[in-house]
């Protein structure tokens, strides 16, 4: 029991807040800078040996050298071409098949088990087969990346189609819209958010497969560059290559983010 009312009057303690991520600008940059500074300091001071980790400034120098000599483009252009062609094929086909699975019960019943069987296969294991089918050149690499992006795109697309609000479809039917109109104007835009977020995963898988394919047989390309560096234990070049891959990942993710911003402006 309190002695007097004025005595017991105190603010209600705040118990809410948290559990809601807020955008904190610059935090990532600070973390990156700290990690780099730590590595630089460690390698210079000697408590990180040169064989454990290359000096960040040396990696930067290697990158600059790569750019100056023009070799950066020699490696980057074929890699980007493979990634773009392969994932364009895989994603387009994946969205097509995913839509079919989402729309037709027979296609769903027939293809979902096939997709489930294809999905967990490490696609890189099929590279020898693709080399026989499509040749040792670019064809097999396109096929590998296409297949790798194909299956996750299917899964995300039919999941997205399943999640389209059925009341909107009923509305379309109740106004006598044609089947094509319902698919084009209601199902496809309704599935777009899910398809785009699936695209992030697909492209990331595409980059992994790109490097794997290039390591197994390519003269030029980021994967080939990393493999050469690795077999010579040239850690500076190895890290430079890995850094290029990271940047590639960040850039594609940013590009998809821009695409989402443009296409999904209607979302809050």
């Amino acid at each position, binding site marked *: 029991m309190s002695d007097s009312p004025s005595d017991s009057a105190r603010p209600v303690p705040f118990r809410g807040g948290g559990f809601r991520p807020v955008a904190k600008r610059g935090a990532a940059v600070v973390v990156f800078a700290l990690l780099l500074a730590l590595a630089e300091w460690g390698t210079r001071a000697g408590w990180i040996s040169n064989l454990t980790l290359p000096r960040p400034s040396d990696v930067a120098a290697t990158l600059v050298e790569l750019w100056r000599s023009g070799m950066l483009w020699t490696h980057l252009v074929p890699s980007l071409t493979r990634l773009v062609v392969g994932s364009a094929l895989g994603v387009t086909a994946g969205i097509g098949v995913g839509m079919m699975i989402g729309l037709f019960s027979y296609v769903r019943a027939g293809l979902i088990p096939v997709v489930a069987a294809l999905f967990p296969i490490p696609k890189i294991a099929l590279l020898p087969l693709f080399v026989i089918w499509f040749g040792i050149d670019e064809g097999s690499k396109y096929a590998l990346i296409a297949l790798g992006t194909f299956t996750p795109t299917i899964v995300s697309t039919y999941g997205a189609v399943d999640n389209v609000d059925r*009341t*909107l479809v*009923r*509305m379309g*039917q*109740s*106004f*006598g*819209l*044609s089947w094509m*109109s319902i698919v084009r*104007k*209601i199902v496809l*835009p*309704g599935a777009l958010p899910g398809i785009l977020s699936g695209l992030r995963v697909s492209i990331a898988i595409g980059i992994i497969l790109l490097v794997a394919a290039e390591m197994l047989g390519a003269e030029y390309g980021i994967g080939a560059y990393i493999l050469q560096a690795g077999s010579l234990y040239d850690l500076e070049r190895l890290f430079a290559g890995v850094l290029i891959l990271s940047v590639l990942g960040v850039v594609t993710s940013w590009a998809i983010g821009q695409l989402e911003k443009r296409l*999904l402006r*209607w*979302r*809050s």
Partner: protein
Amino acid sequence: MCPPLSAVSAMELTLDKITHRYDGLSVLKDISLHIPAGEILCIIGPSGCGKSTLLRLIGGLERPSAGQVLQLGTPPKGCLNPLTYVFQDFALLPWRTVEGNISLVLEDHGIRGAVADRIITDVLARTKLSDFRPALPRQLSGGMKQRVAIARALVVKPAVMLLDEPLSALDAQTRELLMEDLITLWSRQPFTGVYVTHNLSEAVRLGHRIAVLSRRPGQLREVIDIDIPLTERHAGDPRLEAMQVRLWDLMKQEAMAADQELLHV
């Protein structure tokens, strides 16, 4: 702009012994009902009595297990979609603007460009939405969203409007405003309407006739006529209050029983 009144509601509907089951669960039983032209029929009943199912059957979104829904007469000239719904949750496409949501139902009839523009301008003016033309649904309040859905329904010049609890997702004040809007729209250009609701005050304000359903399996308990013209009905009118009490007496037992039912779905 508006077609002559006589042409607007030339189509009538008759329900002939409608019975409906979902996997053996009987939802509606033996419902025969006449829906005359130019009047609003309200269907009320306790929750889960199959009111909304009945409306889906009337508009052809579902097939009855037995019985049939008959159209009498031909829809008026210029009618693009004879049986047109207004849904409880608005069913607006979130990626289309107010204008886009309305043009959606015109596009399939080949109405585009300047013609569509004129029609949309007219319907937006009638539903007081002219200022909201470029807005996206997420920017609108619930009441405004339902106004857009009503505009979308009006634009196809329906012979019969099927309203599925159109005001149930709105707060009491907005509901009052929209009820007045609906009455204004009707008195300016009478339409045939089937209005499903669980809200008795909406029923007595908007219904020329009120059909009362029993709890599941829904059967027709009674059809009540209200002779007071729509425009003379106002909130708090003692005659309407009395009618509401009478309806509640009819429904109370059913509603209590329905409330205590276990769901087997």
